[in-house]
C-alpha cells in the first residue's frame, strides 16, 4: 500500500471541500465538486483549508525534495535541497505546531545520532497517538460511511508513520524487541498496514531468530495484506537469513532462488547490497515486485546482511548472499561488481 503524500494531500482537501458543500445546495455542490480537481492543481488557495492542511501540503513538498529529488542530486545541488527541505518543514511546524509529520521528518537532521533520533521518536510516541486520536474523534463526529473511514484514516496516518519510523529506527539501533513491539502497536492501530510495517517486523523477528514469530506473521498476511501474499522481498530475505543462521544452506538457497525468480535484476542488487537513506516521509513508494522494491529491502536488510566477524567486512550473511547470487547469474554479478556510475543505484518513483 505505502504512504502517498500527494494523494493524501488531495484526499484531505477533497474531504474538507465535500464537507463544506454538504451544508449548501446539492445541485450547486455537484457543479462545484466538478471543479475541485482543477482548483486543487491550479488554484489551491481558493479551496477551503485549515492551517493543518496547509502545513501538510508543505510536508508533501518537503517529501518530494528530500525523498525523491535529493537522492539523485549532484554534490552541488544537495545542500540547497537539504536547506529547502528544512525550510519547508520549519514553515509547516510554524503553521501547525501539531504537524507530527513535519516534526518527525525534521528530527532526523536535528538529532545528533540514530540513538538520539530513536529516543526522540520513542519519547513522543504516546503523545502523538493521543493527539492523532483526538483529531480523529473530532474529524469523524459528523461523518458517516466512507467519508468517516477516510477522515479517521487521514487523522491517524501521522501516528502510523511515526510508529513505522520508530520501528525502523529501533531496528537500526539494535533494539529488535522494541522494533517488534512498535510494529505490533502500529498493526493494532492500523490492521491493514498502510505503512507496510510488517516488513520491518519481519526483519526484527529474523534478527531475534524467532522462527515461530515469522511463521505467525506469514499466517497473519491474509488479514494484514489480503491482496498481496507473503512474497515481498523482506519476508523472503528474512527466510534466507533464518535458514542461513541455522546452517540450512539448501533451504537458504531455495529462498534466495525464489527471491531471484520473483524480482528482476535481483542478482545485481544482491551482489551490490547498497545502503540507501531511508525515506523521511515514509518508506519510498515503489512498485510491487519491482527491482526497486528489492533494492529497498536489501538496503533495509543491511542489519541482517552485515552481521558477524568475517574478514571481508560484508557480514557473514552478506558475503554468502553475494556469493550465491553471483553463482546463479555470473554475468549479472560481474556487471554489478564492475565500476558503478554514481546514479546507477537508487529508487525511481513509479
Amino acid at each position: 500500500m505505502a504512504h502517498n503524500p500527494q494523494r493524501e494531500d488531495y484526499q484531505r482537501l477533497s474531504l474538507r471541500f465535500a464537507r463544506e458543500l454538504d451544508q449548501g445546495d446539492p445541485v450547486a455542490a455537484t457543479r462545484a465538486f466538478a471543479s475541485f480537481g482543477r482548483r486543487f492543481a491550479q488554484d489551491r488557495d481558493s479551496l477551503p483549508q485549515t492551517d493543518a492542511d496547509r502545513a501538510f501540503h508543505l510536508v508533501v513538498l518537503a517529501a518530494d525534495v528530500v525523498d525523491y529529488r535529493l537522492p539523485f542530486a549532484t554534490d552541488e545541488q544537495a545542500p540547497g535541497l537539504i536547506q529547502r527541505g528544512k525550510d519547508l518543514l520549519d514553515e509547516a511546524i510554524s503553521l501547525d505546531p501539531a504537524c507530527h509529520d513535519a516534526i518527525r521528518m525534521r528530527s532526523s537532521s536535528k538529532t545528533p545520532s540514530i540513538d538520539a533520533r530513536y529516543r526522540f521518536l520513542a519519547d513522543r510516541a504516546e503523545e502523538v497517538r493521543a493527539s492523532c486520536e483526538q483529531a480523529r474523534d473530532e474529524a469523524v463526529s459528523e461523518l458517516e460511511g466512507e467519508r468517516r473511514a477516510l477522515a479517521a484514516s487521514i487523522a491517524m496516518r501521522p501516528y502510523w508513520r511515526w510508529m513505522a519510523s520508530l520501528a525502523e529506527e529501533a531496528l537500526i539501533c539494535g533494539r529488535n524487541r522494541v522494533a517488534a513491539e512498535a510494529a505490533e502497536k502500529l498493526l493494532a492501530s492500523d490492521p491493514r498496514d498502510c505503512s507496510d510495517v510488517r516488513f520491518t517486523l519481519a526483519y526484527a523477528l529474523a534478527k531475534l531468530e524467532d522462527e515461530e514469530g515469522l511463521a505467525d506473521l506469514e499466517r497473519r498476511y491474509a488479514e494484514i495484506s489480503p491482496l498481496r501474499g507473503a512474497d515481498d522481498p523482506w519476508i523472503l530475505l528474512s527466510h534466507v537469513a533464518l535458514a542461513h543462521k541455522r546452517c540450512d544452506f539448501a533451504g537458504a538457497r531455495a529462498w534466495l532462488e525464489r527471491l531471484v525468480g520473483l524480482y528482476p535484476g535481483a542478482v545485481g542488487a544482491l551482489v551490490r547490497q547498497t545502503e540507501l537513506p531511508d525515506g523521511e516521509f515514509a518508506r519510498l513508494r515503489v512498485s510491487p515486485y519491482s527491482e526497486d522494491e528489492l533494492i529497498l529491502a536489501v538496503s533495509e536488510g543491511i542489519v541482517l546482511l552485515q552481521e558477524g566477524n568475517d574478514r571481508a567486512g560484508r557480514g557473514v550473511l552478506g558475503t554468502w548472499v553475494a556469493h550465491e547470487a553471483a553463482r546463479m547469474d555470473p554475468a549479472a554479478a560481474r556487471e554489478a561488481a564492475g565500476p558503478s556510475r554514481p546514479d546507477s543505484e537508487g529508487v525511481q518513483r513509479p
Partner: protein
Amino acid sequence: MNAWDELVERCAIRRRRKIGPLSDEAYQELLLAVRADPESFVDTTMERAVLLMARALDAYRASCRDDDLLDDDAYEAERTRRISALHAECVRAREIDESSLDANLMQLLTSEFDPDPLLEGLIGLERDFASDEPPEGDAWDDVFYRPHLRLRAAVARTCLDGARYRMAQSAAASVMDACPTDPLGARHTYALACARLEDERELNAVDARFSRRESAWSHLARTLLLYKLDRMGASTRALRGFDRLCAGGAYALLRPTFVEAYFPDRPDAPACSFEESVLAVREAEPIIADVPDFIPWCQGQEWLVESARRFAESRDLGW
C-alpha cells in the same frame, strides 16, 4: 587447554589398564611418576600426538611473550609465523594419530578461516567423531572425551562470531549439560547469545544455574541486553557494575585490542580480571557492532571514561 596434564592422565590411565586394578594411593603414585617425566611414559601413537601438541602449544605461548616490543608490520609477520608453525605441528600430530580429535580441531582453528568455513569444518569434525559415546556423569572427568567438549565449545563460539545466536545457545547449552561445572566457560558464550537475542529470561536462567557466579561476560551481557531493551537506567547500573567489579573493564570496552583466536580454547583468566574483561569484550565484538550507538553511549558516561583513564595510567597503558 593444559595439554601436559591431559597427557599425564592419559598415560597413567593406560598404564593402570595394563597392569590391572590399582588402589587410589597406588594410582596417585603412578600419576606422580608420570608427571615427573611424561615423555618416558609416552608409548602409543595417540600419546605421541598429544605430546607433540603439548610441546607445540608451549612453543606457541612462549613466542607470544615479546609482542609488545614489535611494531605493526613486525608483529603481523611474527604472528603469521607462529600460527603457521603451530599449524604445521598440528598437521604433524594428525599424521601421527589421525584419530586425534584435538589435532584435527587445532589444525582447523589454526587455518584462520572466516566464521562460515570454520563452522563447516567444525561441524564436519563432529560428524566424523560422532561414534564416540559420551561418558556417564560429568563428561569433563573423562580425559579422553574432553576433545569433544572443546570442539563443541568452539562450535558455540564460532556460531557467535558468525551471527548464529540460537545455534550458539544450543551448542553452549549442550556443553553445560555434559559438564555441569562448565570448566570451558560455555556459559559465557551462552550469556552473550542471550544478550544479542534480547532473551532476558534465558540470561537470568543461566545466571541462576551457575549461582550468579560473576564474570566479565555476565556483566557485559547484562549491560548489552538492557541497553537493547531500552531500559537505560538499568543498563547504566549494569555498566557501572561492569566497571567496578571487572578490573579494567572500562578500559577494555573503550580501547578494545586485538585478541588472538583461541587455540583450542579460551585462555585461563581469573574471574573479573582485566584479562577476562579483554576476552569478554572481544567475544562480544559482533554484538557490540550490531548496536551502533552502544560505544558512543558508553563514551558519554564521564565516570566510565575517567575510570578507563585511571586504569590506563595505573598500568602504563596508552590513553
